[in-house]
């Protein structure tokens, strides 16, 4: 036993704990989405979330990892810890998509897209930033993946939503928006709190080592900043909804939490704790405005994923230019644009092709009856009488 072995052990433990927390985020997305869809589509969204996680692990491990990182393996900690940590990141990106396309997409089409996204699309743009590719050489900074993971997921989601169209009954004539409330608010809140918890591992673990004072201090700062950004996001979203609508809209507050988390993800270690709070507050405001704006544009996103991960992802990348000496605004914008263009175009082509070839949308009758009966055969709450009929 030597100092360096102990250091190896502690870094491995640190990464494994972080990776476990990120794995746990799968439960966060599952519960968040299960809470925000109607009860007739709840079983199906759970199936999607579990299978996308499974597929992400298998596809990225066997294909994507190689594409993204080549054959390099770390030596300061267990390589398999690193691989596990990377796996769960891909699943996060894919989880973002499932929420945005919920309640109307065929399960099979979604799974096919998940395979391509996690095996190819994500790893390619990921390699540009984290695999030593041209964006990293340019000086584009994205510490834990506000762009690589979150905005990428949102870009794929946006492409899907554009091809798919809104849920039946969401938009009326002359700009009317008919809200479609989710069935289970405690579940949505639980999901958000799981994500808050897991995000400490997502951002903290991205430091990858903790074995000396400098790294330990960084990791601690990341934990604190991540938490403060989320808190500030919640509060800002609350204040603005209360200001505009005089009500405390829970789902907006939940989106505010997630927006704070996404925004700080781009660079959680450098800002002061006050800056992190401000970054989070900005995210909380932006996400509320963005959700309303997307609804005006008839872009139907049941859980707000495009706003939370996409719009706020870009905002987070821009913030890095303000807080980090090494970053420049232009590089951050170029990086964001490159990733977005790549993921969005690939996704658009694939969704479009799948739609032409097989149709990606449930039939009107199936959408009306609900994806649970159509795809899964069992309802989420079979014993409870629903006040909405179908």
């Amino acid at each position, binding site marked *: 036993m030597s100092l360096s072995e102990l250091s190896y052990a502690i870094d491995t433990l640190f990464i494994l704990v972080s990776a476990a927390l990120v794995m746990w985020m799968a439960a966060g997305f599952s519960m968040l989405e299960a809470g925000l869809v109607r009860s007739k589509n709840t079983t199906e969204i759970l199936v999607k979330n579990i299978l996308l996680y499974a597929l992400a692990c298998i596809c990225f491990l066997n294909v994507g990892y190689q594409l993204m990182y080549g054959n390099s393996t770390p030596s300061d900690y267990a390589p398999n810890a690193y691989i596990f940590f990377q796996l769960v990141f891909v699943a996060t990106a894919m989880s973002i998509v499932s929420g945005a396309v919920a309640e109307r997409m065929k399960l099979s089409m979604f799974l096919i897209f998940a395979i391509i996204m996690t095996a190819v699309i994500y790893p390619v743009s990921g390699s540009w930033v984290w695999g030593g590719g041209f964006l990293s050489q340019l000086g584009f900074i994205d510490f834990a993946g506000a762009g690589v993971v979150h905005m990428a997921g949102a870009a794929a989601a946006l492409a899907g939503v554009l091809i798919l169209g809104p849920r039946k009954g969401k938009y009326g004539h002359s700009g009317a928006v008919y809200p479609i409330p989710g069935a289970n608010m405690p579940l949505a809140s639980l999901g958000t709190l799981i994500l808050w918890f897991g995000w400490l591992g997502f951002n903290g673990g991205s430091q990858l080592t903790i074995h000396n004072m400098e790294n330990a201090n960084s990791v601690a700062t990341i934990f604190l900043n991540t938490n403060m950004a989320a808190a500030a996001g919640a509060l800002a979203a609350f204040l603005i909804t209360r200001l*505009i*609508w005089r009500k405390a*809209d829970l789902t907006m507050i939940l989106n505010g939490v997630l927006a704070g988390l996404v925004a700080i993800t781009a660079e959680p270690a450098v800002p002061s704790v006050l800056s992190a709070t401000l970054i989070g507050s900005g995210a909380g405001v932006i996400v509320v405005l963005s959700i309303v704006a997307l609804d005006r544009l008839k872009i139907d996103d049941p859980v707000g994923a495009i706003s939370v991960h996409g719009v706020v992802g870009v905002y987070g990348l821009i913030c890095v230019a303000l807080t980090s000496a090494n970053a420049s605004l232009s590089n951050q914008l170029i990086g964001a644009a490159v990733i977005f263009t790549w993921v969005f175009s690939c996704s658009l082509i694939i969704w479009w092709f799948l739609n032409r070839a097989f149709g990606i949308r449930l039939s009107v009758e199936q959408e009306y009856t609900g994806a649970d009966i159509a795809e899964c055969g069992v309802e989420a709450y079979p014993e409870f009488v629903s006040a909405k009929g179908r």
Partner: protein
Amino acid sequence: MQLIIAIIKPAKLSDVREALEELGCQGMTITEVRGFGRQKGHTELYRGAEYRIDFLPKIRIDIAVIEEQVEAVIDAIQEAAHTGNTGDGKIFVTPLSKVIRIRTGEVDRFAV
């Protein structure tokens, strides 16, 4: 025999039940319903979009009574369910041609 159908505010259910018990009514059946009427609903807000809820929760009481009791039961319900605000509800009376108690096969006045 008449079937008395009362639509009342949910909060008044226990008062009505007690009033009916005092009258000697030994049975009734209730249903969760939602009512639309002069009483206005409320506005809800979800993700920045407002919408109105027009149907308000009400309780429907179905109670079969013999002719002699009809008036007394109606009065008892009206008194117990009354608050004076819109939305207090309605009482409907409809004739019954027959009543049967499943357990014993008794009919009409012996069945309620």
